[in-house]
């Protein structure tokens, strides 16, 4: 009954007027910055950091954590409505979510995103409460070879993201991998493909690329259409809430997404990011009648949204139990705690249980706030689509620029935005999809880093990739996925050949 007394302690901390208020402020701000394209939790947390110095550490963390997972909720809104992923985790949501919006089903898409996120967030919070220490041990078991093989699996999965041609999807993944090579090489420190521009030394700006390729390219494409056809939503606004049939269809998608997200979220470095991609891939392979995926299948919104929110919650496990940040926002939160004189980690969990359990309890409360905040807002957001495009697009462009600039305060990032907008437009015209490119860009550098580190430590012996059971399992899974993609493609080709 230890867990019950701990949870009671946690709720005792979280359910005070002050902490409830800060939790609400956190998730509200999180939703807001999530909706605004580009302005991410990192910039927001950095700006609010000085405010937290005078707060009690638990209160500060409750608010900062709220911003982080609140942004995951908000990010889906922009992805669905205007096809701009604010965070890498909402890239996949654009695929089916925006397709639904174009069909006049923006309401149910937003609704299911909020509901799936809430369910996943609640379950994942329970996972954090019950299994944090053992899960943290698992995270420590992951060696470089295992990470590499996990990334390989993720990249093969990227091909499944494609709506149309597999060949084009492969080309996009490869282009993403190439773009990912720009910047310092972790192993030797050599700076590659930067043409002497210092701003590129740490790689291409993910935000500039994502916003250019999705957001700005889409805006240019829309402006090309005649004014009457420019409206984002074809037809009326439609139903605002998902129907019972929608919900029934999504139950298992949400469950699978939650499971995957919770598992991958605990891996420091890239785990949480992979979760939404992995959930979509699995869904497309497992679900009945997967043909609709890419054309506005509600399960294609439910699964990745569940996964990214579950991953956001469980990514607190390495931070709270090991003191290891799994992404830049977490690093900032660790900084906030250190300024308060607390070293996050296993000792903090024992010495300051009220901090750990208070944060856990607040996560559940925060998720509830988010659901209450987001469901009534769905109608409002949908109505935003009725705003004439000539008013909407300047606002989109402006927020994209602010968002990209706010990350490093570097004007060069805006040039990157321009370049990737142009590239995105060309690719859109060619029918090539940006989602696999993004996954290649994000996973490529990590894959290289882990592979080279695995080989460095094994003194050059590649067998380490097979002798580690985890790594071998991921490679097998990747191979199986590859075969399952290749067989239908080969079969169709043969049929075509036979006809001729």
């Amino acid at each position, binding site marked *: 009954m230890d867990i019950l007394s701990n949870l009671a302690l946690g709720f005792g901390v979280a359910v005070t007027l002050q902490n409830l208020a800060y939790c609400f402020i956190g998730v509200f701000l999180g939703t807001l910055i999530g909706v605004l394209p580009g302005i991410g939790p990192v910039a927001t947390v950095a700006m609010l950091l000085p405010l937290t110095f005078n707060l009690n550490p638990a209160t500060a963390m409750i608010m900062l954590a709220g911003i982080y997972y609140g942004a995951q909720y908000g990010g889906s809104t922009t992805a669905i409505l205007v096809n701009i992923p604010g965070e890498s985790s909402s890239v996949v949501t654009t695929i089916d979510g925006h397709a639904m919006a174009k069909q006049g089903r923006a309401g149910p898409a937003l609704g299911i995103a909020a509901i799936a996120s809430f369910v996943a967030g609640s379950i994942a919070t329970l996972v954090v409460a019950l299994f944090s220490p053992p899960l943290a041990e698992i995270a*420590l078991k992951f060696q470089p070879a295992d990470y590499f093989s996990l990334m390989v699996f993720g990249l093969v999965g990227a091909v499944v993201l494609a709506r149309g041609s597999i060949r084009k999807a492969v080309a996009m993944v490869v282009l993403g991998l190439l773009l990912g090579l720009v910047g310092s090489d*972790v192993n030797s*420190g050599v700076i590659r493909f930067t043409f002497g521009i*210092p701003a*590129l030394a*740490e790689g291409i700006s993910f935000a500039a690329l994502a916003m250019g390729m999705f957001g700005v390219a889409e805006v240019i494409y829309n402006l090309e259409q005649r004014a009457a056809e420019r409206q984002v939503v074809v037809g009326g606004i439609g139903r605002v809430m998902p129907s019972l049939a929608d919900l029934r269809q999504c139950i298992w998608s949400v469950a699978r997404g939650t499971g995957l997200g919770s598992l991958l979220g605990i891996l*420091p470095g890239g785990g949480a990011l992979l979760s939404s991609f992995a959930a979509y891939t699995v869904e497309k392979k497992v679900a009945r009648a997967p043909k609709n995926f890419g054309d506005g299948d509600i399960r294609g919104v439910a699964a990745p949204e569940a996964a990214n929110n579950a991953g956001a919650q469980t990514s607190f496990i390495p931070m709270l139990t090991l003191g290891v940040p799994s992404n830049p926002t977490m*690093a900032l939160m660790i*900084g906030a705690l250190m300024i308060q004189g607390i070293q996050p980690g296993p000792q903090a969990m024992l010495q300051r249980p009220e901090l750990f359990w208070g944060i856990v309890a607040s996560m559940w409360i925060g998720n509830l706030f988010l659901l209450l905040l987001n469901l009534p807002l769905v109608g409002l957001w949908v109505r935003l689509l009725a705003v004439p495009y000539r008013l909407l697009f300047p606002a989109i462009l402006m927020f994209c620029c602010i968002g990209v600039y706010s990350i*490093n305060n570097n004007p060069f990032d805006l040039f990157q935005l321009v370049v990737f907008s142009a590239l995105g437009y060309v690719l859109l015209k060619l029918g090539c999809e940006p989602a696999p490119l993004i996954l290649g860009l994000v996973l490529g550098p990590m894959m290289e880093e882990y592979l080279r580190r695995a080989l460095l430590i094994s003194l050059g012996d590649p067998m380490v990739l097979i002798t580690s059971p985890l790594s071998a399992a991921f490679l097998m899974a990747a191979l199986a996925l590859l075969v399952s993609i290749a067989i239908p493609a080969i079969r169709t080709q043969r049929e075509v050949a036979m006809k001729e």
Partner: protein
Amino acid sequence: MRVAAGLLCALLAVACGSPVQAQSYPTKPLRLIVPYAPGGFADVAARIVAEKLQQRLGQQVIVENRSGGNGFIGTTAGAKASPDGYTLLVAHTGEFAVSPAVFKDIPFELERDFESITMISIAPLLVAANAKSPIQSIPDLIKTAKAKPNAVGMGTPGTASINHLAGEWFADAAGIKLLHVPYKGGAPAGVAVAAGEVPMGVMAISSVMAQIQAGRVKPLAVTTAKRSAQYKDWPTLQEVGNVKDVDASIWTGLFAPKGTPKPILDRLHAEMVAILAMPDVREKFAQGGADTGGMSPAEFVAIIKREAAAYRTIVEKANIKPE
């Protein structure tokens, strides 16, 4: 009445102790540029100091992270800012002692572009090992590495990081060859040592403290010539490694663009000395294993120059050439 007014004037003059220019300074918010992402060593130092400066100067002090390009972007921005005392730079060992030794073309130079105000904090680095690894002491490490040259993995937060250079310094002095395994930052490197991915590493104390408390990582020795004030039972490399001269640390410092008026520099220096002596400030730095600075600008520059020369020798000997 006149006496009272005169006294007040005298008091004010003593309190400020500087000409008119500095008395009116500051009249608008200050920016502290940190050339790294939020949450890092330099950022935390900047934020601790910014909070106190804000209280004492009566103006907002904003920490602005200009990360990217190994710290070059933010540092260059600091060098090019107008020298009016409203834009300052918080840099660390990397920019002025390590980078000049490693990189050929650097867009800034300490004495050409900056006025050094003072050191903010200084901390030793820690040579630490996985608690379950057979290496449990510095003599163990030297013995194992001598038996298997270039095979004992040494985790660091990156190639040509101060940690890497400190590790090579020790290896060179001890006559051993270690296998350098770079990570992307201190936190992943700390986890790698905790997980046993590499048997040992050279870490900032703050990146491995949690793992040391959890018993996963064992501290072997600090890289400075003197023991850490906070962790007195950790020996130094010089004591247990039979190595002379090895003395590496990571510091943060406050800098202003070249040409900032002397009265403003003096005022900032005086405020910093007062802030760095405050018990709560010292306590916050102590958490991360750091001591506070506060020496005169001339002393600070002398330290930086001495370190830069030492690192240049290490870089040549260990042949660290990223370009």
